[in-house]
């Protein structure tokens, strides 16, 4: 199965490290990616759940497909300003 790298930020980075790697079947969606990360980090599943997925620096909905060639990031609720 393809290996995907997910970049993590803020509270998620402290919890899981700057990068999480996981294997996902080809054609998997952003929603499936979030579920897989949550399973890999059971202590932080709620934080993963309220985080958004960015693919190539653009926010995507749960049905968007993700692949090993994409720049994938998991972004907790923001607090800029």
């Amino acid at each position, binding site marked *: 199965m393809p290996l995907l790298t997910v*970049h993590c*930020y*803020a*509270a998620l*980075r*402290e919890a899981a490290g700057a990068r999480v790697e996981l294997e996902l079947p080809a054609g998997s969606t952003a929603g499936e990616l979030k579920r897989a990360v949550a399973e890999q980090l059971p202590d932080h599943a709620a934080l993963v759940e*309220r985080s*958004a997925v*960015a693919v190539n*620096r*653009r*926010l*995507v*909905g749960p049905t968007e497909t993700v692949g090993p060639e994409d720049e994938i*990031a998991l*972004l*907790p*609720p*923001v*607090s*800029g*300003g």
Partner: protein
Amino acid sequence: MPVIRSEVIEGPLDPALWWLQVQDPSCGATVLMTGQVRDHHQGNRVVRLEYEAYRSMAEEVMEEVLTETARRWPEVRVAAGHALGSMEVGEVSVVAAASAAHRSEAFGACRHIIDGLKERLPVWKKEFGPDGERWQEEVPLRPAEERRDEESG
């Protein structure tokens, strides 16, 4: 029309520079919004904040917010900046500036910029103080399509 400056940089920021850069002989009104580190948050005392960004995306999003603002208020000159790293109480972490012939466009544009940055910029702050340290979580990020649906709905 003119997006004068858009930057995500190591902080803190000097707001006077941003004010100066949006000046133009055609502009009689400038609105400058600054955000600075506050000494409290939700009942906790705060002595400093640490800002972290998904920097490449934050730079793109800031440019996008400014470009949208300039499209909606074509006669307004706009600029914005966000600081990263460790900052103490009173230091300026965010700046939005808008300059126009008249004040109402400048107020509208400045408000639009700062609201866009607060809602969309992938930036986070962690607070430190005698009551401990914690990440602040304020706004869940949403894809552009979802935000547009809500605005039109």
